[in-house]
């Protein structure tokens, strides 16, 4: 993610403060709280900077942006290391490395960032990778900059690029992604920003920020994309948009607005949406520990239910085939939310 393509005079960089904080310290500040009817527990896997998650037949797969590890966890077993991918810190201070993971047949797909900003570019940077059954890592495409989110769709893949602020479609057998939709900037009333700087955000002047797509999901005949928004991440400044899967004249519709920096979106069983909010941004602290949430959105009524609150920089949510959900956090443990 790159929150500041059009920065203010003060260039701000956000995530990362808590990503390297001891997890115990983070947990001491916030204990996740589940909605009535659910119970939350920690999964027995340690991720330094939790990132992607996927599931197939009860087996879970995770990516760790702190170590570069791609891990497999079979039911009742200890984690197995499948691959180690490059990690780093990007030019604006964000951790980067293996982002999201998806299962496709007997292989895994991983969206991959890059190495440290002051290192030479590597062959697996800015890429969609596959991890083959024997553990070999193969580059499917390097046609991205910051390919943060991934959603398989039939034989193709949708990828959102948080650097190019666009949704791409990559077809099987091709290494050249096609730009499917470019996200315009999001407009904010200046009032949300004036408290930060009266000289940079004068009264009465609207301000717009990069949309920064972070999560993508396919369902109900559309592509859902989480738009994180940009600095200084005013409350309610993020949104989920839907884009019909059609050949031409694609339009994005705001499906869910008034979100606090959404990082992921998934289609729940029954067709509703699961949305992860990264948290509330505070001038003195950045994204406040414990301010992230998992929401469930009823698409028919628009009703939103907070399934899980008190999260610290959550990255990915997946619904489990056996019921319940798994949530990874950049600043905390991997959580399972199960029905009581």
């Amino acid at each position, binding site marked *: 993610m790159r929150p*500041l*393509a*059009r*920065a*203010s*005079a*003060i*260039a*701000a*960089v*956000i995530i990362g*403060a808590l990503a*390297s904080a001891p997890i115990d310290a983070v947990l001491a500040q916030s204990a996740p709280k589940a909605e009535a009817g659910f119970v939350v527990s920690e999964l027995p896997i340690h991720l330094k900077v939790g990132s992607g998650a996927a599931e197939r037949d009860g087996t879970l797969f995770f990516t760790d942006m702190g170590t570069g590890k791609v891990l497999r966890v079979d039911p009742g077993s200890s984690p197995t290391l499948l691959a180690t991918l490059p990690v*780093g*810190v990007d*030019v*604006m*201070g964000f951790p980067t490395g293996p982002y999201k993971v998806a299962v496709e047949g007997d292989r895994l797909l991983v969206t991959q960032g890059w190495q*440290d*900003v*002051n*290192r030479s570019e590597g062959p697996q940077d800015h890429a969609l990778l596959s991890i083959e059954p024997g553990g070999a890592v193969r580059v499917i495409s390097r046609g991205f900059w910051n390919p943060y989110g991934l959603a398989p769709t039939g034989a193709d893949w949708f990828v959102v690029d948080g650097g190019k602020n666009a949704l791409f479609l990559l077809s099987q057998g091709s290494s050249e992604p096609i730009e499917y939709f470019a996200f315009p900037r999001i407009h904010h009333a200046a009032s949300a920003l004036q*408290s*930060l*700087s*009266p*000289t*940079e955000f004068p009264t009465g002047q609207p301000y717009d920020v990069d949309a920064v797509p972070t999560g993508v999901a396919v369902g109900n005949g559309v592509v859902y994309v989480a738009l994180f928004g940009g600095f200084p991440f005013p409350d309610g400044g993020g949104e989920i948009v839907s884009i019909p899967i059609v050949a031409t004249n694609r339009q994005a519709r705001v499906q869910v607005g008034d979100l606090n920096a959404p990082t992921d979106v998934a289609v729940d069983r029954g067709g509703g949406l699961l949305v992860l909010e990264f948290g509330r941004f505070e*001038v*003195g602290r*950045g994204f406040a520990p414990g301010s992230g949430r998992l929401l469930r959105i009823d698409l028919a009524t628009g009703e939103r239910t907070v399934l899980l609150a008190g999260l610290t920089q959550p990255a990915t949510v997946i619904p489990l085939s056996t019921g319940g959900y798994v949530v990874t956090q950049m600043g905390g443990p991997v959580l399972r939310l199960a029905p009581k």
Partner: protein
Amino acid sequence: MSISRALPALLITASIATTAAGGDPIPGNPLIEIPAGPFVFGSDSGNENERPRRVIEGQAFAINRTEITNAQYRRFVDATGHRSAFYGGHPVLGLDDRPVVGVSFDDAAAFCAYYGLTLPSEQEYERAARGTDGTAFPWGNAPIDATRANHGAELCCSGDDSDGYAMTAPADSFPAGASREGVLNLVGNVWEWTRDFYAPYQGQAPPDIAGKYRVLRGGAWNSDPSHLSTTYRLAYDPEFRFAANGGFRCVRSLAPAQ
């Protein structure tokens, strides 16, 4: 003037004498003496909040030759337990010789206080950056170029590497852009916190502004020409510590705090 007010002033005078003898409190970052005397402050050609241009009488002070570096800030953190700079671990922004960034006003003020110094006032900044006759830049009135300052792209607010640095440059770089007293990077590289609250130069600040914001000066590595000025005033929430282009330097000041 009360005794409590007068006494520190005397001590500061004595300290400057010590500085002249080689007693710089921050190792590797000498204090450059700026003599008392009249100087031009403000501008009639910039933004409304820079007006009016006038001549005021300045007191003597001494200012760090460079912005405070990561190495210097780390020594302070190690000695005091103060929180680290937000970008202290960044592969570029956190390099030892680069100016520290990702510090709030209080972080910066605490650093200076630890060494018996303060942040500059806006007047001290302008006197150091413009000389006595109100030049446009520390080096004079010649336009800014890639040899004199670490600046950004023409269009706000992206960094570029036309000056050799995509982000921050070493604090002792750009000697061609030094002030006549030899102070470096007073324009460009990083915005620098001052100790002044943001307010109009004349009249009262509106209630929603008064006492709420501190002023940063000088522009930064991502600043466009409109921000790269010795008179531009950037007001910001003093708690903000996520600026990848916000740093500071210290002064030994005779002027009373505002």
